[in-house]
């Protein structure tokens, strides 16, 4: 509750601040201050289970240890994102305050999408996430690629929203309780009413659109490639895991009872996502586009949580959110500093800037899932959840094989960093200030600590 209200208030403050403050650097400090306030208040809410704001929302939002932990993870990752790449946001355009304001509104939407208790709040939350993202994608107004990405993202996003609404309408029609509350959806074992089955399918398709799972992933590479790199970083990390969290929450609480009937569909989507994401990533020359496909591949792993739908899956999705967001924010933060976004552009980084090279290596290893990094633990939890589930053991084998294939394209970048000579004068184009380096060290430390003690993330859930 704290997070929803405070992010919305701070978004409005940032927006009006953009009108009155002419300085280009001031909005960043206001945003970091706001983020600290939001983060501390959401941690206080997690510890005390009491919100600062008490008003009657008719049980439309529900907070518990699980989703409060998730909100705290999201806020921590966003704070790190602001600290690491805040200076890059300033370079995108002239309306700096508004970019930060839009990010705060997205965080508000994420908080709603993580705590929803009715389909209405799910819809509102997803839309509050999506609409500011369309603007951020197109924020580089003179750049044709950015325009194209924004239009594509907008048309696809609006289309999938329409599909989701149709699903919600069907579920409402088929629900004899005439209610949008997710725990009041009466499905009945064995024989599912046709309206509810159709609604479930529609919602599954539209949520797959939002989290870019194959075969509904085709917008992802173009949008991630065209958007300004700083915003791609945010989109592919925090926003993506929020989509998965909403997906998991909806399917656990409202359709969990008929889990075995839709499990095969999710298994199919998982395999398709793993195959298409990993295989296409292998052929990419641009690191930014490769990371876009790799985010599809990671989505395949996160889908295992929805496939398994047990206690381990809930722990796994928290761990995956933290691990994937940190590594993704880190690697995109390094990418914003590069002169050339192709893999050859990373040649010789190891000689020119050893710290940045080491950080990039750790992030890529974490994305691959090498032990001692957070990525390993999160993938391990996901696979454990899928094994615990008891059905469809082959899915685990497929996931492991594709995790191995993913090593190829991540290691290609590491190889370029350390074992190839650069033929250009500068590898790192943008000036790197000492603070950026400190933040890289912080992220490396977090990744390694979570990799060794995953309990520090999961433990909050049971507090």
């Amino acid at each position, binding site marked *: 509750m704290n997070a929803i209200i405070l992010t919305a208030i701070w978004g409005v403050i940032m927006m009006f601040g953009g009108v009155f403050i002419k300085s280009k650097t001031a909005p960043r400090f206001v945003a970091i201050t706001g983020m600290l306030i939001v983060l501390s208040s959401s941690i206080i809410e997690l510890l005390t289970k009491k919100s600062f704001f008490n008003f009657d929302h008719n049980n439309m939002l529900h907070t518990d240890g699980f989703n409060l932990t998730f909100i705290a993870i999201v806020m921590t990752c966003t704070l790190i994102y602001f600290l690491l790449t805040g200076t890059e946001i300033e370079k995108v355009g002239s309306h700096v305050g508004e970019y930060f304001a839009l990010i705060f509104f997205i965080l508000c939407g994420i908080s709603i999408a993580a705590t929803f208790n009715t389909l209405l709040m799910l819809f509102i939350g997803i*839309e509050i996430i999506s609409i500011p993202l369309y603007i951020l994608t197109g924020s580089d107004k003179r750049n*044709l690629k950015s325009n194209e990405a924004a239009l594509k993202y907008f*048309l696809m996003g*609006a*289309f999938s929203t329409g599909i989701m609404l149709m699903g919600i*309408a069907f579920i409402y029609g088929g629900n*004899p309780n005439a*209610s949008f509350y997710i725990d009041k959806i009466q499905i009945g074992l064995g024989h599912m009413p046709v309206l509810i089955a159709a609604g479930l399918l529609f919602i599954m398709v539209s949520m797959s659109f939002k989290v870019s799972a194959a075969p509904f992933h085709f917008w992802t590479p173009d949008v991630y490639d065209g958007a300004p790199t700083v915003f791609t970083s945010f989109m592919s990390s925090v926003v993506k895991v929020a989509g998965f969290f909403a997906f998991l929450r909806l399917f656990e609480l409202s359709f969990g009872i008929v889990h075995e009937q839709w499990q095969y569909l999710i298994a199919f989507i998982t395999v398709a996502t793993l195959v298409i994401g990993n295989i296409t990533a292998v052929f990419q020359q641009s690191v930014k586009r490769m990371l876009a496909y790799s985010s599809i591949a990671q989505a395949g792993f996160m889908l295992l949580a929805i496939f398994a739908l047990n206690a381990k899956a809930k722990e796994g999705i928290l761990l995956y959110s933290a691990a994937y967001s940190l590594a993704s924010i880190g690697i995109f933060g390094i990418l914003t500093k590069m002169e050339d976004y192709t893999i050859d552009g990373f040649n010789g980084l190891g000689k020119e800037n050893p710290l940045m090279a080491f950080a990039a290596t750790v992030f890529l290893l974490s994305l691959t899932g090498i032990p001692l990094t957070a990525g390993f633990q999160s993938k391990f939890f996901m696979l454990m959840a899928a094994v615990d589930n008891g059905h469809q053991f082959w899915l685990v084998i497929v996931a492991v094989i594709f995790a191995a294939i993913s090593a190829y394209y991540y290691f290609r970048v590491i190889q370029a960093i350390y074992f190839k000579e650069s033929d250009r004068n500068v590898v790192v184009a943008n000036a790197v200030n000492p603070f950026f380096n400190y933040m890289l060290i912080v992220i490396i430390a977090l990744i390694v600590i979570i990799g060794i003690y995953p309990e520090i993330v999961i433990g909050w859930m049971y507090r």
Partner: protein
Amino acid sequence: MDIKAYIILSLALFTIGIVGVLVRRNAIIIFMCVELMLNAVNLLLVAFSKMHAMSGVAKASPYFASDAQVFVFFIMVVAAAEVSVGLAIIVMMYRNVHTVDVNFLNRLKN
């Protein structure tokens, strides 16, 4: 009137919307088709709301059948917000390339 008629009508509108999104190449017409999809949903929600209210099941439950009618207002508001952002994006594109044809959008392919 039978609820089936409403379901068929709104599904027909929804399908026209989907086909329009997939077939048409003009960004503004695609956008109008998306709006048509949303309005088909609005119609269906109102029809279901009336159906639940008349069936009497809703009278026994503490939840009101009018929830769906409130939902329709939310859809309208969100659609309006989406229109404002979407038209801005289309205008931005028009300023740069002087066309609203989505076939023009192929720069990111290579």
